[in-house]
């Protein structure tokens, strides 16, 4: 069958899973600076599914698309180390403050400028946990979506056979192309970096990253087109500025409260028979147990 063009939507996120003691400030608020910026975990599951489709259909290409500040180019390099062919970074101050609706508009606008058969995204990002950008981008592209994907089992000219992971079971569906799928964390982990690719792509740079580079270095990149990470602004994708950022975001954050460790006066029970028995008796008497 003909080679497929696969786009992977990836996001760089703060690692909210490893909020250790140093990541909480003394007042109980989050110390964002102490959180490492990582490749969103389910987006790695998504990349793996894309690479597997590429393995199944020789000649297919995997292109990463990410939106974020300049440093998010790291996500594209990481994807290339693991087998992606190239990448696009959507970066512009005008994207800042976008909620999921505005973000999905930006992403769908960028995707529609590219050729694609399959768009693969992680189910959700760990900083927001909304799982909304994938389906919203599919709606804006006017293509069907399959969410909670555990495995793309089969690819042929008619489309994909996909296994979905549901709360209490599974579902197997057949989807035509083009389609957008969102991949669940129960899907296989992403393959590791390939040494050859690390050597090949470690100097891959966006134009912005080259601004402070020496002339020799820029020259070297320019002589090797595969080292260029494409960078797109709002103007580059021809998006409507009003539909982006705060003005394009119907949801507003009214209030943020940090979850602070409350100093609660717990009653300390000694681990001896007498105190444990009296606790149990108390719980029975006040009908908590029994």
């Amino acid at each position, binding site marked *: 069958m003909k080679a497929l063009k696969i786009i992977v939507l990836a996001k760089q996120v703060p690692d909210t899973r490893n909020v250790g003691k140093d990541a909480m400030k003394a007042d109980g608020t989050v110390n964002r600076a102490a959180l490492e910026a990582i490749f969103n975990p389910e987006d790695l599951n998504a990349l793996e599914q894309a690479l597997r489709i590429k393995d199944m259909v020789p000649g297919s290409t995997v292109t990463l698309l990410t939106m974020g500040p300049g440093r998010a180019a790291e996500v594209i390099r990481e994807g290339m180390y693991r087998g992606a062919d190239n990448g696009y970074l959507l970066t512009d101050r005008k994207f800042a403050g976008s909620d999921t609706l505005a973000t999905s508009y930006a992403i769908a606008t960028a995707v529609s400028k590219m050729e694609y058969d399959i768009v693969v995204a992680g189910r959700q990002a760990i900083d927001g946990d909304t799982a909304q950008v994938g389906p919203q981008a599919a709606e804006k592209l006017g293509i069907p*979506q399959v969410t909670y994907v555990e495995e793309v089992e089969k690819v042929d000219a008619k489309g994909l*056979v996909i296994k979905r992971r549901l709360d209490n079971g599974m579902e197997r569906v057949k989807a035509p192309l083009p389609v957008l799928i969102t991949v669940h964390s129960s899907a296989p982990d992403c393959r590791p970096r390939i040494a050859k690719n690390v050597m090949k792509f470690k100097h891959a740079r966006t134009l912005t990253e080259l601004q402070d580079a020496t002339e020799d270095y820029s020259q070297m990149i320019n002589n090797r087109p595969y080292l260029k990470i494409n960078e797109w602004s709002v103007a580059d994708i021809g998006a409507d500025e009003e539909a982006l950022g705060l003005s394009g975001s119907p949801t507003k954050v009214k209030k943020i409260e940090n979850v602070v460790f409350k100093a609660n006066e717990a*009653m300390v029970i000694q681990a001896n028979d007498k105190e444990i028995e009296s606790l149990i008796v108390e719980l*029975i008497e006040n009908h908590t147990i029994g």
Partner: protein
Amino acid sequence: MNNIIVYCETNGNSVAEVSLELLTKARSLSGQLKVQVEAVIIGNDLKGLEDQLYAHGASIVHKAEDSRLEFYQTLPHTSIVVEIFRKEEPQICLFGATPVGRDLAPRIASSLKCGLTADCTSLEIGDHYEKKTDTTFKDLLYQIRPAFGGNIVATIINPGTRPQLATVREGVMKREETNPVVKGKIKNWNVSEIAKKDDFVIEIIERQIEEKRVNIKGSQIIVAGGYGVGSKENFNLLFQLADVLGAEVGGTRAAVDAGYIDHDRQIGQTGVTVRPKLYIACGISGQIQHRAGMMESSMIISINTDASAPINSIADYVIVGNFSEIVPKMIKYYKKNSK
């Protein structure tokens, strides 16, 4: 007009628990707004399900029946719900934060260009003053949810778009029937007029739905273990205590990841949210992601060798020591003192 609509899921021949929880919540919000609660239900054969919806406060039931809609499918459900929302102009619409609700609601929000908040754990009605435009928005839906891995709680509003859309986590709202039950009205919607042929391009080949074996959410008492329990064998002790107390056993993500306990017993941000009468935490340090899923328990007993474990700050009773010595004592004294 401008009522609250709850999108209701079905499983087989009953309405999903989360949808009934949402109807109950919608009822209390509708009281404040002085509007009515309506339900949307879509499927193949929905005969009689309206009674469950009336019993939980729906005064209008929007029904869309079609033989092709035996199981949930994104595109036809989107077309139908979007059509109903356009015609009925609700001010608030609620969905369960389930694989269905989280698949459907964003698609609808994108189609209507409306704001949507995912995975809310609390909903309130309140005003909002916008300084920039010197405008006060009355009676908005405050959509309250944990974010940033549970480290913050955000209140989100949609001042400018209607309807205000939210998905709500299962098990965080209480379900209650109305008393007396007021019989409402059914409004039928013609699926073949609304859904296009292209809406059925995704074909369901196979479905395997297991009845949930464990029901941690419904349990009044939970004995939970963390990584500190140390092994799958050690969890047996927790099961013994649960057995005598009539409790269920749960675990933290770390315990699940370590293979000590099954995934369907995971409590916390990425597992289920519980709020039992009594929560006995054994060897659980109490990472914020875990606490987010159990901190509303009425009473918490923490058993931990570390007196300064974070979970102790939200516990009512702290027993400092090794659970493997303490749990058998609890079993012994429960047997001795219970009648």
